[in-house]
């Protein structure tokens, strides 16, 4: 604005000088002509200097700004139809649910029993496109940052660092955090009015989960909708309960802490007592070109498909940076860097760091922070997971080790995520043929 004003002033001044020069020429006044000429020269010199300065500035800006972060194309999403679908029209219902990215729900045993092979194939294709498979195995959870210096851990180091060794079964994890557009489908489908998706304990508070204009939806939305420019940004301003409700609506659940850490740090057992576990999804050294962390030039979230170089071994993007992610677990005060803590309220665990995370050591796969489950913060989003054993798959994914008893999750009983997963197991154990519409409603 100031620069435009300067240009206008310079233009007007040079015009005045030229008028003076012209008048002086006509009046044959030497002094006036000299004054006008000097004024004109001065203005021209200032213009030349300013343009040289702005050119230099542009060069220096280009030099100081690094190249934009690499992006990856988002999976193609079928167009959503707002038209109500006849409950008896299986094709229409499947199409609508695939458009809403509820493919995991279609692959649940009770529903899958009613679907044709073609429907199941479409659902599984969507699953493979949108979610990454994380193999089963052990992962160390806890304060092991100091012990991770060399990347290798043995049992003594794990014990010394108060880490916990947890067995995780095979599961699928969303490749990207849930975006505003994806969450909008939940809001538009009346997700905030269907109490079946919500924990019973939170029912009195659901009416209070509104946006800036009082409409049901994430806190920073307006009139029940996100800003168009932020369509592919991760949804933020959602509490842990909203994240859980969305996950149930799409037939998934929030990942456990162990699952989240396993997907990022991708542990590799070197021997029976030693394992390699990464500090970041790409290795053991922070590289700020691979994650959207604190940056003086940009303090906001970016679309979920940016920072493609930060992808994990299994193909999961933005585990580190952009937004913190809710997990299903409780925040264990003992796991924090600061040691044993006393929490003001019970907290849920968040992981991964956000666009305003200042320190590298607080944006590692191991670092855990906590937040009030009703907190609707500007930098906390989520992604969903689903156990392989909870789904009916036409093609079985490659397995490292078949689950012995078919139990889902991480074997971490304290995390409180068992509800949805156990329901999935129950369904898997006794599939009952019922109509799709009825089952989805249920």
């Amino acid at each position, binding site marked *: 604005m100031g620069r435009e004003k300067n240009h206008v002033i310079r233009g007007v001044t040079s015009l005045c000088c030229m008028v003076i020069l012209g008048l002086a020429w006509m009046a044959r006044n030497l002094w006036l002509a000299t004054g006008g000429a000097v004024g004109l020269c001065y203005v021209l010199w200032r213009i030349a200097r300013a343009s040289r300065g702005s050119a230099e500035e542009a060069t220096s800006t280009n030099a100081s700004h690094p190249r934009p972060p690499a992006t990856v194309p988002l999976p193609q999403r079928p167009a959503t139809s707002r038209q109500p679908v006849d409950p008896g029209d299986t094709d229409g219902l499947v199409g609508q649910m695939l458009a809403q990215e509820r493919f995991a729900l279609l692959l649940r045993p009770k529903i899958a029993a009613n679907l044709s092979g073609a429907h199941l194939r479409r659902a599984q294709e969507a699953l493979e496109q949108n979610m990454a498979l994380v193999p089963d195995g052990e992962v160390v959870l806890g304060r092991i940052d100091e012990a991770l210096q060399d990347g290798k851990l043995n049992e003594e180091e794990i014990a010394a660092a108060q880490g916990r060794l947890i067995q995780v079964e095979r599961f699928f994890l969303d490749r990207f955090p849930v975006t505003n557009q994806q969450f909008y489908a939940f809001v538009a489908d009346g997700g905030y009015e269907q109490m079946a998706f919500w924990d019973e304990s939170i029912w009195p508070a659901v009416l209070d989960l509104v946006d800036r204009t009082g409409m049901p939806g994430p806190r920073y939305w307006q009139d029940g909708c996100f800003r168009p420019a932020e369509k592919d940004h991760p949804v933020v301003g959602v509490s842990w309960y909203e994240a859980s409700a969305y996950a149930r609506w799409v037939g998934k659940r929030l990942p456990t802490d162990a699952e989240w850490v396993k997907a990022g740090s991708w542990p590799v057992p070197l021997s029976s007592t030693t394992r390699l576990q990464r500090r970041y999804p790409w290795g053991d050294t922070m590289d700020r070109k691979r994650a959207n962390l604190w940056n003086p030039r940009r303090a906001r979230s970016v679309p979920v498909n940016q920072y493609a170089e930060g992808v994990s071994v299994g193909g999961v993007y933005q585990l580190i940076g952009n937004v913190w992610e809710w997990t299903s677990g409780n925040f264990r005060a003992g796991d924090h860097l600061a040691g044993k*803590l006393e929490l003001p309220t019970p907290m849920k665990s968040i992981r991964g760091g956000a666009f305003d995370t200042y*320190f590298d050591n*607080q944006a590692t796969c191991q670092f855990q922070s906590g937040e009030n489950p009703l907190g609707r913060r500007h*930098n906390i989003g989520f992604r969903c997971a689903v156990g392989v054993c909870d789904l009916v798959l036409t093609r079985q994914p490659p397995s490292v080790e078949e689950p012995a008893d078919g139990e889902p999750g991480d074997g971490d009983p304290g995390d409180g995520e068992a509800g949805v997963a156990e329901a999935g197991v129950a369904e898997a154990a006794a599939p009952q043929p019922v109509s799709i519409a009825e089952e989805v409603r249920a």
Partner: protein
Amino acid sequence: MTKSVIQPLESYRLAQYAVPIPCYICDTDNTFDAEFCTHCLAPMALAHQANFQKTRPQMIAVVGAADAGKTVYLGMLIDMLSRQLDRMQLLARGAFSITLQQTTLSALARCEFPPKTPNEPDRWNWVHCQVRRPQLRQVMELIMPDMAGEALLEEVDHPHTFRVIRSFLEKCTGALILIDTVKLQEGMPEQDFFTMKLLTTLSELANDPKHGWSKRPVALILSKADQCDECREDPGGYAKAHAVGLWQYCQERFHCHKFFATGVAGACAWRESLSEGRVQVPLRVEPHGIVEPFEWLLDKLGAKWERG
């Protein structure tokens, strides 16, 4: 029995002792080798550095009640500005100016808050730095000490207890005043009253209608706003609702003031420590609103910038 030794005369030392060096804060004459001013205990390094520069450093006060977050704010501000390249840069002058940054950032990286600032002025961290605005080619020399909240309270209640505080506040060209939002939210009026006392003291120290504190810029920073979303979104409105006396006082007495909200920790918890008792710890560090008040203040000091 006597023993003869050769004693160098070192007449140049006598000459150095003969030239008094005034303290940059209180103007009391000191000898060239004094580490701290004999009168106010301010570091004499400030005077030595100022003598070597063509531009006189400006002084900015970072004040507030005990535990309001002065040390964290100042340490974080210095670190953030020293990482910036385009809008505003900060370059520390002298190793002692980096100590505060080092202490604060090391503690925060460990998910701890820095230790409490001691009451003794000779143990405070003084920051002498150069602030540059590369795009406008402007430079300013600044001195900003991290003073103890208890010492400030003592000086406000019992004037002349801490000479350095009075001398410093008289010379300051602007102030960043920190107010604890959590305590305001809990309905504790101490923050409100203390800040009003501080502002009254400032008004009395320099009450010249043209150049006194009524015309100097004052940024009122509601600290720990990460724990109060209402404050974070509208700090002025929050102050009007929760610190009515202070808000009214500023409207009447300070013509150039603005409320800001700032926060460093995303969430906090408590930890029992054998040595310090029950201490608060940050669960993560995500600073916001740190640079804005400082930038506003320096914008208001427009005439003090030098061509650089």
